[in-house]
């Protein structure tokens, strides 16, 4: 089964989505950490009142986390679950 084209598609559908996205959000998070460390002037810029770039950047990390979770779940429900279900029922039916 692991060698089959059908399973290959499922694996590709998972990996080609989860791996690049993981690298992307870790890079985005590290960017935040590095900017906090080495780009004081930029992060300290006040946008309005006492709200500065650093705070907005931090809150943006919250926002992207929520969005990525939602995006992955939608991808999993539409692209992964049906394929996985089909393979599983075939294998367990055959066994």
């Amino acid at each position, binding site marked *: *089964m692991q060698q089959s084209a059908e399973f290959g598609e499922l694996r590709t559908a998972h990996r080609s989505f*989860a791996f690049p996205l993981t690298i992307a959000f870790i890079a985005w998070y*590290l960017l935040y950490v590095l900017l906090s460390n080495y780009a004081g002037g930029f992060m300290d810029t006040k946008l309005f009142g006492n709200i500065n770039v650093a705070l907005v950047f931090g809150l943006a990390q919250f926002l992207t986390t929520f969005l990525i979770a939602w995006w992955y779940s939608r991808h999993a429900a539409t692209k992964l679950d049906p394929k*996985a279900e089909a*393979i599983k029922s075939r294998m367990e039916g055959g066994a």
Partner: protein
Amino acid sequence: MSTLSVHPAQSVQSTVLAANEASEHRPLIISLFAVFVVATLIITVWAGRQTKSASDFYAGGRQFTGFQNGLAVSGDYMSAASFLGIAGAIALFGYDGFLYSIGFLVAWLVALLLVAEPLRNSGRYTMGDVLAYRMRQRPVRTAAGTSTIVVSIFYLLAQMAGAGVLVSLLLGITSDAGKILIVALVGVLMIVYVTIGGMKGTTWVQMVKAVLLIAGALLITFLILLKFNFNLSDLLGTAASNSGKGSAFLEPGLKYGVSSTSKLDFISLGVALVLGTAGLPHILIRFYTVPTAQVARKSVNWAIGIIGAFYLMTIVLGFGAAALLKPGEIIASNKAGNTAAPLASLEIGGGGDSAGGAILLAVISAVAFATILAVVAGLTLASSSSFAHDIYANVIRRGQATEKEEVRAARWATVAIGVVSIALGALARDLNVAGLVALAFAVAASANLPTILYSLFWKKFTTQGALWSIYGGLTSSVGLVLFSPVVSGKATSMFPDVDFAWFPLENPGLISIPLGFLLGWLGTLLSKEEPDKEKYAELEVRSLTGTGAH
């Protein structure tokens, strides 16, 4: 709301009174706490009656819904570190404390995208199950069991430190004997929860606690925002000026920007936080309590929502504490800032000499106690499960133990771990609780995450690779902590009077996490044995489709 107006002078005075006032309201605090304890004990006994098989004890019967488990995951995750430690770190260091909230949350994406679902499909009761699937059972399970217990004990230490701190503030108990008594009480309760209730009881306790914690945080957040007319900018401005550090308080760098070493420490902490979550054993075993991988995914999504909302509130709690209290009082009460949130709730309720303040302080403290108790139970369950299932049943008894014997071993392990954590509880009082938890994250990210990812996704990974990675990550992270300023050499260290700290960073993650990954790769490359291709094929199909999952 005129009683809420705070003048700095009055504020100093009122918090100096806090301990005395708190002890005057001791009956209230104790009765609130007693209500929680009695309620959770009833739940535990009820759950214990339904705990018959090993699957009930380890995995709560696998019948929880996504929302229930999401709540329980949040309960397990939002420890005393989140509540007391982050609020304290923000109250003392302003913006730099905020990194904890962000790292602790973003980390969930690693769990969601890469770990939760395949783990649910391929394992049974412990993290070791996944690794042992295609490796040589005994060495890999020994390694997984060891690192599970080490990570959990680091984490337990943090919770116990939090318990000691709270007690001295709330009950006015300052004698060492009194504190040890309370730590022992926490230990005994957690032994009862876990031995009787197993995973089912512990999961329900987590859910109750998560609801209480969110409700408590919401209440204080609302009151603080109300005082500042829901003007966040105003709140931040007051915090900045009141802290005596001006706008630097709202900018990165107050704690970590002082030198190039501390900047590296910031990166190290950041990396440990984001990679640690998906390697925490007590979080990983939560995914076994649901029937399928899809439900595991749902529970992570709920957890991300709940935990995210909670961490947003820590911003208000932390900066609120900084705005309402003088930094001197926070430090006077606890050097590491761990009491900032309870003190802020006392202040926002009207100060030390008001009934409102005392009631809020009592409520928040009871919530924090509940938090510690529940997390401690979750950690103990994770380590005793791993001891019984990985080490006792599969290594010592070579898979010949009956279910009954295995569960009995888990119960005895619970008692042993309870006793150990009570003994360690007294050691770490003045360390910031969030900082201690960050160390547990670093150990988890160095020893557990590399092997989990390699096992699930790398065809060529071998037993030797797994062992090098686990033991290498474990010894390097724990070893570097041992020789770091956390343990010796500074006034805030565990042993301030001696200095053997040659490693400059407080968090070892920057070195030990890449090392864990590197050793897993190198160990595999240099191993003489062929990876078991058939087993990997089986694991891959099972982890992605759930075919044959327990």
